[in-house]
């Protein structure tokens, strides 16, 4: 009954192998504007359904952090509020999502589940247009600075987040501040006199909920075919065979 499947497990353990063919990361790619982050690896001994499951999980079920709520104090640019918020959501944030917890709708925004960014740009009275890039998003380790409209006259001003301690004091962030992954993403363009002032809250999520939380630009797999020649091919036939294959799969072995 179960005997055959357990034998499969041993066979699987013997036959399974992983080989990394290529890794391209920030250190290896030279030019600034062509930074590619990719890895290509071969898995030997697994079924297509497992490879597909891997692909689907990479796209949809690996959590990341992305901007979810945008509190806009002032936006006099030509980019509408919702379009601006959409663009901000798609900006990748360079932070390890394992350091954070999920936040649901009713949870309070604490330092354990939220990161706060602030964007305040104003294009001066001179005529040159200003492009707002993602490096102008400033991290606020102490939480939100926008006050909520509170009717009571207590001395404590309530903001949109309740951080019990500054995120700066946590060991992971004390020397490396949280920033967007790429500093040169255009968010909006401003003319003289236009201003954008907003606060963005970053939250953990899955690609399943929205593509902005997908950690990969894409992930794909293909099966590597194995070509077995049933008969020896020699002499002229061999040379013709090598020439005919457009992918140059064949090679002539002497002797």
């Amino acid at each position, binding site marked *: *009954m*179960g005997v*055959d*499947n*357990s034998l*499969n*497990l041993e066979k*699987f*353990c013997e036959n*399974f*192998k*992983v080989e*990394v063919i290529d890794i391209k990361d920030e*250190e290896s790619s030279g030019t600034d504007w062509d930074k590619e982050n990719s890895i290509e690896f071969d898995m030997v001994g*697994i*079924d297509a*359904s*497992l490879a*597909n*499951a891997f692909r*689907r*999980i990479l796209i*949809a*079920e690996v959590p990341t952090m992305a901007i979810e709520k945008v509190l806009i104090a002032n936006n006099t640019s030509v980019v509408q509020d919702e379009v601006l918020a959409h663009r901000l959501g798609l900006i990748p944030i360079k932070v390890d999502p394992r350091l954070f917890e999920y936040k649901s709708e009713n949870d309070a925004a604490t330092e354990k589940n939220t990161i706060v960014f602030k964007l305040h740009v104003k294009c001066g009275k001179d005529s040159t247009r200003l492009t707002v890039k993602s490096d102008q998003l400033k991290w606020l380790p102490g939480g939100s600075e926008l006050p909520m409209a509170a009717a009571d006259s207590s001395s404590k001003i309530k903001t949109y987040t309740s951080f019990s301690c500054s995120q700066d004091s946590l060991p992971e962030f004390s020397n490396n501040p949280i920033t967007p992954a790429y500093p040169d993403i255009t968010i909006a363009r401003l003319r003289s006199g236009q201003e954008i002032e907003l606060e963005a809250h970053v939250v953990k999520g*899955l690609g*399943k*909920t*929205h593509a902005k939380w997908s950690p990969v630009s894409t992930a794909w797999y293909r099966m590597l075919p194995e070509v077995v020649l049933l008969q020896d091919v020699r002499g002229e036939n061999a040379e013709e065979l090598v020439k005919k294959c457009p992918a140059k799969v064949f090679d002539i072995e002497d002797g």
Partner: protein
Amino acid sequence: MNAPDRYERFVVPEGTKKVSYERDTKIINAASFTIEREEHTVGNVLRMQLHRDPNVLFAGYKLPHPLQYKIIVRIQTTSQSSPMQAYNQAINDLDKELNHLKDIFETYNQAVNYASLSNHSY
């Protein structure tokens, strides 16, 4: 307007069981398992594993509708086994295989990190 919320894809609502079981009335040793809030990622892998069991005569999964987030896995076995046994065995074996996969990746990852740390100078 009629689209369900995105979190419905993976959040099982209160009161609904994640997996439910229904025996087939007309065929012996056949049953359907309904798994809530799962899709091809789990269904295809489970089906593949069930095919490897020699006692399983029929194994298949379907998504009845793309906007209803559940899968139905139908299993028919020989009289030597039962669908429940085949299902449990398949899941346990998959668990062991995937744990092994994870271990291999982790040892590889450590080996690669070790190698790259000795190559790069920080």
